[in-house]
C-alpha cells in the first residue's frame, strides 16, 4: 500500500506542537512505515504538493500566514489544526485585547530590550499585520482539531492512527488539553 502523504506547516506559533509531534519518539518510526512527509519544517521542503493530510500549527495573524494556510488547505484532503493557536488563537491571541498600533508600538519601540532611536515601525517588505489573531478555522475549513499547548504526543498519535483507520478522530477528555 502506498504511504499516506503528510504535509505540515507552522504559522504564528512557537513550534512547540511540532516538538510534541517529534516527542512521539520511537512511535514516529512506526508511523513512518505508513506515512511520509512532504512539505514540512521537518523535511525542509518549502513548496506544497497535493497530500492526503495537512497539519497546521499556529494561528493566523498576518497576510503571509493566511496565504500559507490557504495553500496547504488547497493541497490537503484532510486538514488538522494542531495545538491551541491553530484551534483557538492561543497565546498570540493575547494581543487581541489590545489595539494593533498599541501592540506594534510596544514591541518595536517601548520594550526594555529594544534599541530603536529613530522609532521605526517596519511596514515595508514585511507581511501586513491583521488587527486580530484568529484560529485557522476562521479562514479555512478544518476537519480535525487537536488542541493543547502543546498537545500531548499521545493525542497526536491517537488522531493520526484513527485517520489511518479511516475514521475522523474525536479525542477523549483525557487526551484533550487547553493548556
Amino acid at each position: 500500500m502506498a504511504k499516506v502523504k503528510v504535509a505540515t506547516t507552522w504559522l504564528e506559533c512557537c513550534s512547540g506542537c511540532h516538538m510534541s509531534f517529534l516527542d512521539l519518539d520511537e512511535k514516529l518510526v512506526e508511523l513512518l512505515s505508513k506515512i511520509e512527509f512532504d512539505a514540512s519544517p521537518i523535511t525542509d521542503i518549502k513548496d506544497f504538493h497535493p497530500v492526503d493530510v495537512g497539519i497546521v500549527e499556529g494561528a493566523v495573524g498576518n497576510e503571509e500566514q493566511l496565504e500559507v494556510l490557504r495553500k496547504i488547505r488547497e493541497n490537503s484532503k484532510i486538514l488538522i489544526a494542531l495545538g491551541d493557536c491553530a484551534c483557538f488563537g492561543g497565546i498570540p491571541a493575547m494581543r487581541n485585547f489590545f489595539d494593533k498600533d498599541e501592540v506594534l508600538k510596544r514591541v518595536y519601540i517601548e520594550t526594555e530590550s529594544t534599541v530603536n532611536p529613530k522609532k521605526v515601525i517596519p511596514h515595508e517588505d514585511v507581511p501586513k499585520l491583521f488587527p486580530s489573531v484568529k484560529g485557522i478555522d476562521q479562514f479555512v475549513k478544518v476537519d480535525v482539531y487537536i488542541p493543547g499547548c502543546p498537545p500531548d504526543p499521545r493525542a497526536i498519535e491517537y488522531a493520526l492512527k484513527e485517520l489511518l483507520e479511516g475514521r475522523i478522530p474525536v479525542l477523549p477528555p483525557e487526551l484533550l488539553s487547553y493548556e
Partner: protein
Amino acid sequence: MREVKIKIDGREFTATEGMTILEAVRKAGYEVPTLCYHDGLSPHGGCRLCVVEVKGSPRLLTSCTTPVADGMEVFVNTDRVKEARKFVMNLIMTERNHFCMFCEKSGRYEETDCELQKRAYEVQIEHFPFPVYVDKYPVDTSSPVMVTDHNRCILCGRCVRVCSEIVANSTLDFSFRGSKTLIAADTGLNKGESSCISCGACMQVCPAGAIFSKFGGYKGKKSLCEKVETFCPICGVGCETTNYVRYNNIVEIEGAGLAKRTLDGGQLCEKGRYGPIMESRNRISIPLIRDAKGRFVEATYGEAVNKVVQLLKANSPDQIAFRASSFLPAEDLAYIKGFASKLGVEDIDTFDGDVYRNLSSFSGSKATYEDLLNADLILLVGGDIIKEHGVVGSYIRRAVRNKGAELMVISSMESKIERWAKEVKRIAEGSEGSVAVEYKEKISAASNPVIVLEGAGLLRNKEAIEPWLRLAEELSVKVMALAPTGNSLAAWELGVAPVSSNTLGKPKKLLFLFLGDIDSSYAPAEIAEIGYETVVLHSAYIDAMMKLSDVVLPGKSWLENEGTYKLLNGEVRKFTNILNAEDNAKSPREFLSDLANAMGLGTIDVSSLVSKL
C-alpha cells in the same frame, strides 16, 4: 416527607418529595454535569448545563431547579441532552476570555483546578465553533487577598449566593445587563474599597478562573497536593478546613463545611483562610545561647537543654515563673503545668489568664451560636469581630438579615460589622463598661437579647466587662465571651491560668516563656516590664523578646504541632498537623520532657488531664 417513585433512564428509584431532579439523580448514582449549582447554596438554574429530558415535557428541564414528581420519567444522557450540553458549553466558552493556556487554574483533565475547563473536556470541546467575544473586562486586584478577573467570569452567581446566603455580607451582586454584566462589590466599587471582609468564600466556590488567591498562584494544582482535613484552631471557633499541601507548604486552605451544610456553612475568615499562607515572620531554626559578652551563639539542642538545666538548678522554685501562650495544644499546656508542679513553681499563667479570671465571677448563662442566630437584640461590645472571630460575625449578620434582629455596637474601633448595626456607640478603649446601664431598658424590652463580649483588649479589662456581666445577671441575658486565642478555655480548665492572680506578677529571677506562634506583643506588657534576670524563650518565630532572652529554643508552629483544643463552644477536638516540623523545632512538651529527663524528674503524665477536658 412523602416518598415518590421516579424512573431514571428506564430504571425505577424512590425519591423524597421536595427533592430536585438533580438531587434524586445523584442519589441514585447517576452523574449530571453542573456549573452554577453548588452543594450548600440555593439552586440558580443559570448555566443550563444540568438539563435533562423529562417525559411529557416538550423542552429540556434544568435538573437543579425542577422538583421531582411521582411517576416522573427522567433521561439524563440522551443524545438530545448531550447535544444541548455541548451547545451550552460552546456558548459559555466563546463569551469572554476562556483561553485556558494563560489561566493559572488550567490543567489537563485529571488535574485541572477549573470546573469550567473540566466540563469543557467532558463534552469534548476541541475548538470554538462560534466567534470569540474579545471585549476587555476589568481585572480587580484591589483586595489584599484575592484577584477578580471579570474576563474569566461566566456569571454563574455562585459568589453572589455564597456572599449572601452563607457569609450574609451581601457585598457581591450582579450589576449592569446583558454582555456588560459584571459581578460587582457594593454595586460598583473595587473589592478592596468595598464592604468585602476578605473571607474568600467567593474564591472557594468560583468554578472558573475569575476569582483566585493572590498567594496560591503557580504553587501547584490542588490535584497535585496532599489533602489534610482538620480544623482551624486560631480563634477558638474551630472551622473545619481542607488544607492543600505541597512540598511542606500550604498552597490553599478551604472551608470544608460548605457541602456538608454545617452551621457555619463552610466559611472561613481572612485569618483562617489566608493567615497561615501570608505568614511572613522568620522562623527560629537553631537554638541560641547568650555568651559572657552578651552575644547569641548558635548551639546544639543538647547544649541548650543543658544550659537550661543549669539555670533551673541555680534558681529556687519561688524564683521561677512560667508564661505560656493559650494558643498551644492542651497537651503542651498540661505539660507546662505538670513540669512547673514537679519543680514546685507556683507562678504560672497564660497570656490571657485574666480573661477567664474576669469571667469566673459570672453566674449567668452562656449564649450558644444558635442563641445568636435567634436573637432579636445583639449588643456587640469590644473589638472588631470581623478581624477576631469573623465567622461569628456571620451569625450576627444572619440574625440581623434573616430574623430582623437589632445590632448595637459599643466599641472603640471601626469594624465592617457596623453597616449592619442599628446604632454604633464609639467610646474610648477601656470605658466600655461605663455605658452598660444605658442599655438596660432596651435589653428589658427584648425577648431574646444576647451580649457579645469581643476580644482580648476588652476581656482582660475587669472594669470594662464587669458592668456588662452584672447587667446580664440582673436581666438574665445570655452572654457570649469571645476569648482571643484558640485554646484559652483549655488553658483555664487545665489550671495553667490560675483562678487567683495573687501568686503572679512579683519579680522573679528566671522566666520560661512559651510563645508558640503568638507574637510577644500580644502578651501582657508586664512580661517585658517585670525585669526578669534570665529568660528562656521557646518560640516558633523570631520575636522582639529575643533581646531580653538568654536561651532561645526553636518551637513548632501550630501548623506542625498535633494536639487537642477546646473550642469556645466547649467542643473538644483533636488537631492533625498540616505541615511537618524541622528537626530542631520542638513542641513545648517535647522540650520539657527532654528537660525533665535531664534533671531526673521522671515522667509527667498529661493524657489523663487532657482526657478530662
